[in-house]
C-alpha cells in the first residue's frame, strides 16, 4: 500500500449539511489467478448532497463503471474492496447481502447501459417494473399495476397500456430508455446512478432523455450520478463534475467552474475535444481534430508517479516519481496535479 500513502490529508468536505453519500478512500482491486492485480479504483473520495446532480467524466477503463457497481454492491466476487461508502450514515460496505437487497432499487437505483440488454427479453415490460415494486413494497397485483402505470406516465410515456404489455423487442430505443428510467424510479430512490445510459441514443432522443432526468431530479429531489465520456452533455445539466482517469479522481468541482477554468491537464484535453459545429471549427492548423495523445496506461501495481504523466503536456521530472495528492486550490474544487493551472 506504500504507493499511495503520500497523499495529502483529506480536505474537509466543502458541502454544508449532511451528505447523502460519502465515499472515502475507496479502492477496488480485481484479482485474477494468473495476473498481478492492479487497482481499478484508487483511493476515490467524494460526496454527493441530497438532490444534487453529479457528473462523472471519464474514458472507458477509467474506473467509472466500477465505481457505480461498487456503490450498488454488485462487484464480482473476485474483487477486494477497501474504504468506506457511507449512505445516509450507514456504511454500505459493512452490510450483509439481504440489507443490500433492501437498498438496491429502493434507495439507490441504477439506469443500466443498453436498456435493450438490461431488460429480460421474455418478460413483459410492465411485469419487469412490477417485480421491482414487489421486491420492495407491500401490495397486491392490482395496486402494483396501478403504480407501474403511474411510473410509466411519470417518464412521459403516453401509450401506457401498450408499453405495459409490450416485450422489449417491440419497443423503440427511446421507449426502452424511458422504461429503464421508470425501473430505476419505481420505488422513489434517494439516489439514481445513470451509467453511460444515453450513449447509443439518437441525438434528439438523447436531449429528451437528459431533459427528463433533470425534470425528475427537480421534482422529486432525488440525487443523480450521471456517468459519461462526453463533457458536453454535462454542461447546464450537472451541478458538479468529477473527472476520472485510470481509476482515480483527477479533478472535481462545480461544473461551470471546471468547464471555464479546468485545472488538470487531462480535463483541459477532454474539454478541447468538444466540437464547434456552429461557429467555426476547433481543427488544428493541419486540419486535424485536437486529441489527447497516447492512451490509458496499462494498470499495474508497481507503477509509480502520476499515471497521466506519459500523456501530459505540463509534466516535470517530479511527476515521474511521486503521485500527486489531492489539493484544494479554491473553495469547492479539488485537483490532483503538481502543476495544475499551468
Amino acid at each position, binding site marked *: 500500500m506504500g504507493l499511495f500513502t503520500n497523499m495529502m490529508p483529506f480536505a474537509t468536505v466543502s458541502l454544508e449539511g449532511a451528505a447523502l453519500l460519502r465515499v472515502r478512500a475507496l479502492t477496488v482491486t480485481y484479482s485474477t489467478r494468473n495476473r498481478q492485480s492492479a487497482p481499478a479504483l484508487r483511493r476515490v473520495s467524494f460526496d454527493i448532497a441530497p438532490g444534487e446532480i453529479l457528473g462523472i467524466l471519464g*474514458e*472507458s*477503463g477509467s474506473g467509472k463503471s466500477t465505481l457505480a457497481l461498487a456503490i450498488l454492491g454488485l462487484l464480482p466476487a473476485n474483487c477486494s474492496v477497501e474504504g468506506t461508502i457511507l449512505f445516509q450514515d450507514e456504511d454500505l460496505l459493512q452490510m450483509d447481502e439481504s440489507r443490500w437487497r433492501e437498498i438496491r432499487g429502493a434507495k439507490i437505483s441504477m439506469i443500466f447501459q443498453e436498456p435493450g440488454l438490461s431488460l429480460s427479453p421474455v418478460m413483459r415490460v410492465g411485469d419487469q417494473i412490477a417485480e421491482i415494486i414487489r421486491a420492495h413494497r407491500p401490495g397486491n397485483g392490482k395496486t402494483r399495476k396501478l403504480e407501474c402505470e403511474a411510473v410509466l406516465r411519470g417518464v412521459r410515456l403516453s401509450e401506457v397500456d401498450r408499453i405495459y404489455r409490450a416485450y422489449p423487442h417491440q419497443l*423503440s*430505443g427511446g421507449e426502452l430508455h424511458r422504461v429503464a428510467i421508470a425501473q430505476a424510479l419505481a420505488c422513489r430512490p434517494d439516489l439514481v446512478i445513470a451509467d453511460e445510459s444515453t*450513449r*447509443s441514443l*439518437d*441525438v*434528439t*432522443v*438523447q*436531449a429528451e432523455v437528459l431533459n427528463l432526468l433533470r425534470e425528475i431530479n427537480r421534482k422529486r429531489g432525488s440525487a443523480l450520478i450521471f456517468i459519461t*465520456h*462526453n*463533457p*458536453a*452533455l454535462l*454542461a*447546464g*445539466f450537472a451541478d458538479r463534475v468529477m473527472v476520472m482517469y485510470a481509476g482515480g479522481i483527477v479533478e472535481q468541482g*462545480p*461544473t*461551470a*467552474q*471546471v*468547464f*471555464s*477554468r479546468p485545472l488538470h491537464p487531462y480535463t483541459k*484535453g*477532454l*474539454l478541447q*475535444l*468538444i*466540437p*464547434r*459545429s*456552429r461557429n467555426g*471549427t*476547433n*481543427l488544428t492548423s493541419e*486540419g*486535424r*481534430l*485536437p*486529441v*489527447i495523445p497516447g*492512451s*490509458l496506461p496499462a494498470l499495474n501495481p508497481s507503477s509509480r508517479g502520476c499515471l497521466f504523466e506519459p500523456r501530459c503536456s505540463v509534466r516535470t521530472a517530479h511527476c515521474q516519481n511521486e503521485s500527486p495528492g489531492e489539493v484544494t486550490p479554491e473553495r469547492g474544487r479539488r485537483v490532483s496535479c503538481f502543476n495544475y493551472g499551468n
Partner: protein
Amino acid sequence: MGTEAVGRAIKPALVKARALCKRYVQRAPFSRKKFVIDALMDVDLEIALGCLTALVGESGSGKSTLASCLGILEKPDRGEIWFEGSKVSFANSRELTALRPKIQMVFQDSAGALNPRFSAAQIIEEPLEIQGRESGARLRARACELMEEVGLSPDAGNRSPLEFSGGQRQRLAIARALALKPTFLILDESLSGLDLATQAQILNLLLDLQTSHSLTYLLISHDLSLVGQVADFVAVMHHGKIVECGSRQQVFSAPQHAHTKELLASVGVVEAAFRTAQVGGGQ
C-alpha cells in the same frame, strides 16, 4: 475552408447511386397483415473521389441499408450503382469478385466482427491469404506493416482481439480493411461505441490514411457533431430518403430541410450549453 470545399466539389464521383429502392417485408403472426419497411426510397447519392462524405441519420433512417447496398453486401430492389464509372448493380459474380477488394467496410461492433479465435495478425492476414496476394513470411511482414500504419504496435500481433480496447479493435478492423488496398472505405457507425477522445483519434487516423492511401470514405453516424467537423460533404437521411446533401459548409450554415435543422439544433443546444458554461463560470 469555403474555397476548398468548392474545389473539392468539382472532383469526379467515385461512387454514384441512382434511385435506389429497398423494401423489407415482415408478416405478422395470426393474420395476413404485412409490415412493409421502405428502408430506401429513391435514394440518389454521389460520393466524390478522395473526399470524406458523412451520412448522418437517426436509427431506422435506412443509412445502414444504404451502406450495405453500396458495399455490395446487399442488392437493392431497384436502382443503379456505379463504381469508378462502371455499373455494379447488375454485374455478374465474377465482376463482383474483382470489385469486392476495392470496396471495404468497417462495422460498429468490432468485437463481433473480428474472430476472437484469431490473433490480431491473423485477422489482417486472412483477406490477403484468401485473395492470394501474399504468402509465407511476406504475409506476416505485411500484417505488421499495416498494424504500424494504424498505430498499433506489431508486438501486439499475437494477442487476441478481445484483449484490445475498443479503440484498438477499431484500428485493427481498419487495418484489415486496408489490407486489400481498397479505394473506397465504408465506415458503418464505426465510431459510435467509442469515447469522445478515442473517436477523435480514430478520425485523425482516417484523415492521415486518406492522404497516404488516396482513399474515399463514406462515414455513417447518428451523431453529427464530431463527424461534421472533418467531413467534406454531409448527407442527411430521414425515413429512407436523403433529405439534404451538400458540402459541410452548406449544410451547417444554411440547412434546407426541417430534419437537418432539428439535428443541428440538438447538437447546438448541447454545445451552446457547454460554451455558456465555459464563459459563465469564468467570472
